[in-house]
């Protein structure tokens, strides 16, 4: 079962929310409700599920209701109707005491503008969640220090927030949320207030951290690049409604409607293409135990200047050049082992970004070998593959 199940969530701001829900059920549009009853439907019949250990990104422009939704999840904003089921328990049916307990132990929030207490030190800020739970001073200092270490803020315990840069402040915000060891992290535009370079760093670090922690993260953003980078799944929102939920590739390759498509157009897709997407099957390879005569024949057959050589289990061993092969034939060597150049092959892994492949592919005449984590040959990339992928990119953008 999913960690968090949200069903038919509504939030109406205005004098008589129940009436608005009734009107919606009768089929009146948001616009008419605003006009006739003066009420705003901020979240309109939203349902989604979040799996344990998943990074679930809710994205949309301002006014799309994403910030309202995340605040409904811990009831900072009281939803008008619907259910929010965490581990089989409906948050909306909880009394105040249960809710406080859930907030303390099950979910922590990270805020756009950090929301640090200026009168407290970094350590004391990090302790806050534990402090309100009544954890003993020594123990909570210990836990807070660990959390700070996790986000790379060791040694800043006694600084005050206004002595830190934006990125560091948000690390404190993250550490404060992690110190509670919550099951769910709610991150509300957590990186939006940071400048672009710091922002990328923080995204990378979150991805790294998440690999270790395996928390369930719900991340709000208005930036599709960010959503694609960190999200396992993305939910696109517009005017309080869900437009599309899917994996990043699904959203890119299969936009649900024009709105999503317009969003997707702005994305630099070369950021997303990896070796796996552009590699091709090698025409031919030789093994290190085959003889030079066979290799020479293969070269001639395909008109190649060099060949990839694999060892046992198709692990890439290196390459041989046609000149070396000819020499070996003349000297009558029994196998290719003497002439393998192990260092001259560029190896990349399956998920290497295309931007990192351009250089090795263009500077060498030998194909780039794409290998899995055990070093086995999965495919090759030659200049033309990279160029074609990049060209396609360009023409998509212009279309």
């Amino acid at each position: 079962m999913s960690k968090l199940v949200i069903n038919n969530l509504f939030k109406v701001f205005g004098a008589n929310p129940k009436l608005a829900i009734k009107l919606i059920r009768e089929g009146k549009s948001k616009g008419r409700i605003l006009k006739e009853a003066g009420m705003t439907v901020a979240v309109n019949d939203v349902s989604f599920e979040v799996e344990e250990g998943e990074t679930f990104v809710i994205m949309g422009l301002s006014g799309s209701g994403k910030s309202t939704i995340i605040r409904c999840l811990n009831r900072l904003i009281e939803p008008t109707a619907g259910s929010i089921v965490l581990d089989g328990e409906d948050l909306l049916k909880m009394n105040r005491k249960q809710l406080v307990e859930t907030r303390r132990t099950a979910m922590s929030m990270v805020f756009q503008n950090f929301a640090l207490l200026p009168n407290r030190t970094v350590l004391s800020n990090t302790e806050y969640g534990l402090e309100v739970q009544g954890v003993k001073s020594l123990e909570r200092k210990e836990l807070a220090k660990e959390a700070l270490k996790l986000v790379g803020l060791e040694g800043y315990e006694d600084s005050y927030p206004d002595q830190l840069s934006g990125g560091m402040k948000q690390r404190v915000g993250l550490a404060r949320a992690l110190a509670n060891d919550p099951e769910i992290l709610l991150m509300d535009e957590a990186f939006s207030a940071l400048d672009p370079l710091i922002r990328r760093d923080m995204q990378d670090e979150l991805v790294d951290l998440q690999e270790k922690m395996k928390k369930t993260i719900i991340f709000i953003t208005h930036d599709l690049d960010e959503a694609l980078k960190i999200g396992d799944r993305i939910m696109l929102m517009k005017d309080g409604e869900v437009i599309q939920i899917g994996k990043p590739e699904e959203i890119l390759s299969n936009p649900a409607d024009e709105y999503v498509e317009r969003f997707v157009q702005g994305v630099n897709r070369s950021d997303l293409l990896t070796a796996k997407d552009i590699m091709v099957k090698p025409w031919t390879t030789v093994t290190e135990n085959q003889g030079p005569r066979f290799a020479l024949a293969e070269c001639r057959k395909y008109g190649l200047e060099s060949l990839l050589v694999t060892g046992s289990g198709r692990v890439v061993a290196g390459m041989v050049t046609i000149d070396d092969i000819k020499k070996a034939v003349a000297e009558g060597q029994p196998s290719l082992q003497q002439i393998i150049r192990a260092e001259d092959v560029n190896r990349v892994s399956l998920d290497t970004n295309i931007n990192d492949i351009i250089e090795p592919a263009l500077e060498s005449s030998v194909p780039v070998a794409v290998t899995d984590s055990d070093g086995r040959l999965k495919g090759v990339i030659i200049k033309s593959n990279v160029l074609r992928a990049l060209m396609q990119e360009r023409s998509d953008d212009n279309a």
Partner: protein
Amino acid sequence: MPRIMIGKLFEGVVDYLRVSWKVVFLGIRDFIETIIDFIEYGLSYFPFWVLAIVIALIAYKRAGKGIAAFSLIGILFIESMDLWSEAVSTLSLIITATIIALLIGIPVGILSAKFELLNKILRPILDLMQTMPAFVYLIPSVLFFRIGPVPAVFSTIIFAMPPAIRLTDLGIRQVPTELIEAGESFGSLWYQMLFKIQLPLAMPTIMAGINQCIMLALSMVVIASMIGAGGLGSMVLTGVSSLKVGMAFEGGLAVVVIAIILDRLTQGKSGNNK
């Protein structure tokens, strides 16, 4: 246009309270009197130079060298004018009035920030308390408490409390929403929210309120000498009414010195403290 007898009505209310609520006012009188006596006894227990040094030390810690030197010289100056005992009784009135005004004003300010309705009700009352000429409620408070320091302190409390309420309310309202949300999201209970987030963040503004409260109390204490408050105010009053210009001036100067010391002591906090 018929004459609205609001003055008569007020008289009636005052008379009614004076007679029927006598016990209550006697209780309040005893209470305030005890505090004044206690503080005055405490302050005059030590010779003036001990207090001078203590105040200078506090000033040094909170507001720096300059103010510390000023406090020391100022107190010596008051003593040299032979006004120290008057200054002590004025100080005890101010301290009593301020303490009571803050004890009521800060909690009321906190509640007013929380409950919009209370804030709406309070606003005109605070306006009334601040702008009604002080003489107008000196007389009823004499009727309730008889002549002496108690009605003076009572009037002073009414006059000095509004800024404490207003600025506490403002300070708490100014705490950024995101910080309130952060407190909520980590599961703070209402008192944790108040003492760990709202009050610490509102502190600079509340301190400004306390400062205002003290300053208003000081200005009122001089006026209140008309109903027997004693202290420096009565020096000024006697001086003015018997045309002894020098005496009035000396009393006035002592008030100024005390005002500056108290102001700097309470302002120091918001300025250089972090």
